[in-house]
């Protein structure tokens, strides 16, 4: 019997709407009891004095790069980065090499995760074979192998008929189809948000309408098919409005937003730093405000990192040549606590968007401290200031716009299935 007591923190459990001081007792990998005056004989103690105790965070959107691009990241390094950021589970995108479009590949990823990753790994399988946007994958077999959702992510399915069939067919397996909503014909060569900044820098603009047009199309297809559409990384005011209208009509549409789209504008690109190049691009201040408002009012369910590691030699290219993306697992909590400090989100609502909502969208356990749930728990100090140096982090890559900045709020301990897998002073532990 393994007993673990997390003692003396502020319990934040959105599933039970609980926000009060208390302890959490874990027994054999599950939550045994929550509250005060627990029977704690023989338990290992995790001190959470002055800290928040929350259900483990669940990331809906990460790129772990294994197999195929292990020089950027692998399941071991990505899993450690996850738990260092308080994520006890990570959903990983299908754009590996080879693509995760086959049950054997899903098997491989889960096998690697069991061996190497302290965080749980939920494979997202490709919606179409080789992400080519033409022939759909064997969804039923992929679900049986352990896939949790389908997505072609950055390889947006432009053919509306293919998208219709994918959404229709997904109802057979009843999991979300996750869409990266950017109309590629409108994006064109665009690499920064089209607006005053793209004009000033003389870089090709990626217009907000590339997203809004595509969100509108996919919402219409979701309504028509009745499928669960999950909109990845919303970045525009128009996209948020479109999703809000869909939810008001009662459609099965959910959405996520990234820490960077919640906190950074296209002004970050003023010095041509390729670590600010991301898809969709960092947008205007009005777009950021709309994304924040959407997250606050529930139009956007979840915060997801879109953790996208790239090697330095790749980011050291011309702005137009450098790959899109930034790492985010280790900074997401600190960065998004900004919405709590500003008063936009209560601590409970913030935790819900990092744990309860993403777990619900993926139909996975977690996101709750209820007895019987897996003992996936994050302990964090919301006021702890730290200096972020990606070279000292767990990701193999360093492409972060927050590199070298001071951040406030740090994960202290991460527990997966009742085991301590990360402690801020001792680091991530090998499973």
């Amino acid at each position, binding site marked *: 019997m393994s007993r673990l007591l997390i003692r003396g923190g502020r319990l934040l459990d959105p599933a039970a709407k609980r926000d009060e001081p208390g302890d959490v007792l874990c027994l054999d990998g599950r939550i045994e009891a929550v509250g005060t005056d627990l029977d704690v004989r023989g338990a290992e103690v995790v001190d959470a004095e002055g800290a928040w105790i929350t259900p483990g965070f669940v990331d809906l959107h990460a790129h772990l790069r294994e197999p195929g691009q292990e020089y950027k990241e692998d399941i071991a390094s990505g899993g450690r980065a996850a738990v260092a950021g308080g994520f006890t589970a990570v959903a990983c995108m299908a754009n590996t090499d080879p693509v995760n479009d086959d049950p054997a590949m899903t098997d491989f990823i889960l096998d690697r995760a069991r061996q190497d990753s302290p965080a749980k790994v939920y494979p997202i399988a490709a919606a179409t074979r080789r992400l080519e946007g033409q022939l759909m994958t064997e969804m039923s077999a992929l679900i049986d192998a352990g896939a949790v959702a389908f997505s072609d992510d950055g390889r947006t399915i432009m053919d509306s008929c293919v998208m219709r069939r994918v959404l229709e067919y997904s109802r057979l397996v009843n999991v979300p189809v996750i869409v990266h909503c950017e109309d590629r014909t409108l994006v064109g060569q665009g690499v920064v948000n089209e607006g005053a900044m793209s004009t000033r820098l003389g870089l090709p603009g990626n217009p907000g309408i590339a997203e809004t047009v595509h969100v509108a199309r996919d919402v219409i297809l979701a309504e028509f098919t009745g499928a669960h559409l999950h909109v990845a990384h919303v970045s525009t005011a128009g996209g948020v409005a479109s999703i809000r209208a869909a939810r008001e009509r009662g459609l099965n549409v959910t959405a996520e937003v990234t820490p960077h789209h919640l906190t950074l504008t296209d002004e970050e690109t003023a010095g*041509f730093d390729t670590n600010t190049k991301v898809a969709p691009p960092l947008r205007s201040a009005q777009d950021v405000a709309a994304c924040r408002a959407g997250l606050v009012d529930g139009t956007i369910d979840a915060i997801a990192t879109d953790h996208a590691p790239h090697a330095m030699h790749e980011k050291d290219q011309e*702005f137009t040549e450098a790959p899109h993306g930034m790492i985010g697992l280790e900074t997401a909590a600190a960065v998004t606590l900004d919405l709590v400090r500003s008063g936009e989100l209560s601590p409970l609502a913030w935790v819900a968007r990092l744990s309860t909502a993403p777990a619900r969208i993926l139909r996975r356990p977690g996101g709750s401290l209820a007895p019987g749930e897996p003992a996936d728990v994050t302990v964090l100090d919301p006021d702890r200031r730290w200096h972020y140096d990606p070279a000292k982090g767990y990701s193999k890559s360093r492409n972060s716009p927050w590199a070298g900045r001071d951040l406030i709020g740090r994960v202290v301990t991460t527990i997966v299935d009742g085991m301590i897998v990360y402690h801020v002073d001792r680091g991530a532990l090998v499973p």
Partner: protein
Amino acid sequence: MIGRDLLGIEDLEREDIEKILETAMHMREVGERDVKKVPTLRGRTIVNLFFEASTRTRASFEIAGKRLSADVVNFSPASSSLKKAESILDTARTLDAMDPDAVVVRHAVSGVPRRIADVLGAPVINAGDGAHEHPTQALLDILTVQQEKGRIDGLTVTIVGDIAHSRVARSNIYGFRKMGAEVRVAAPPPMIPADVEALGVKAYTSLRESLDGVDVVMALRIQNERLVGSWFPSVREYSATFGLDRAKLRYARDGAIVMHPGPVNRGVELSHDLADHRPSVILDQVRNGVAIRMAVLYLFAGRHRGGGPFAQQGAQ
């Protein structure tokens, strides 16, 4: 105050521009001598790092460097990513190890001179990056107008053509505005970049309205064949609507001058007649280009390692 590098006109103050123009006036005088050479930069090495093909600008920088007695080295790495063996920053670090006194950078992608300056010890002079900036072009244009009109303050300048893809337009917008001119842009709507008003200009889609009362008309080159059909319907239609000839020039103020950064597509941006005769001042622009680049090399390359007129105030 002038910094270490010349990356764009956006970074300069009016006094900096005036200092460069004043220096260029002296350099013009050198160019008019029988022996067009002074020993100012003797023993200094200037690298022309041109990732993008350029005949005119590179020749202008090379002549400028040689008239100042600098050793000028031309370096043109293959810029296609397929042919490329090393990243731009690797190239920059390699160059840095050779200890040049200034590096003049031209690249087809915006921001490359800035990124190179971030890793290079020597001053970087931007000779044109993507659609971002072409500071020496704007400086020579301002010098040319100054000579023609005796001032910049209070003038109105209209830039006509593909503003969206033009580094010349951006640098001139910053430069002429800093010097006190009003700047307008005129183009077919797709070629007016998003939120261009944020740069402090007024945008027109009617050439006629844009020329009303202006002192200077600057036509931009239609750069790219592949723009035809997707950004504007045809060269013929462009020429009919935005090409300048003497008839359309009558909308401008009497005595207005016509400029073009070259090379001119004759009969497209400018009529044959205008391309060759006043009030166009295209060859004066070219002549001033050498003087401006001499001034820039003197002011920026001359002070590296503690020499030169800005040694005390440079941000080394």
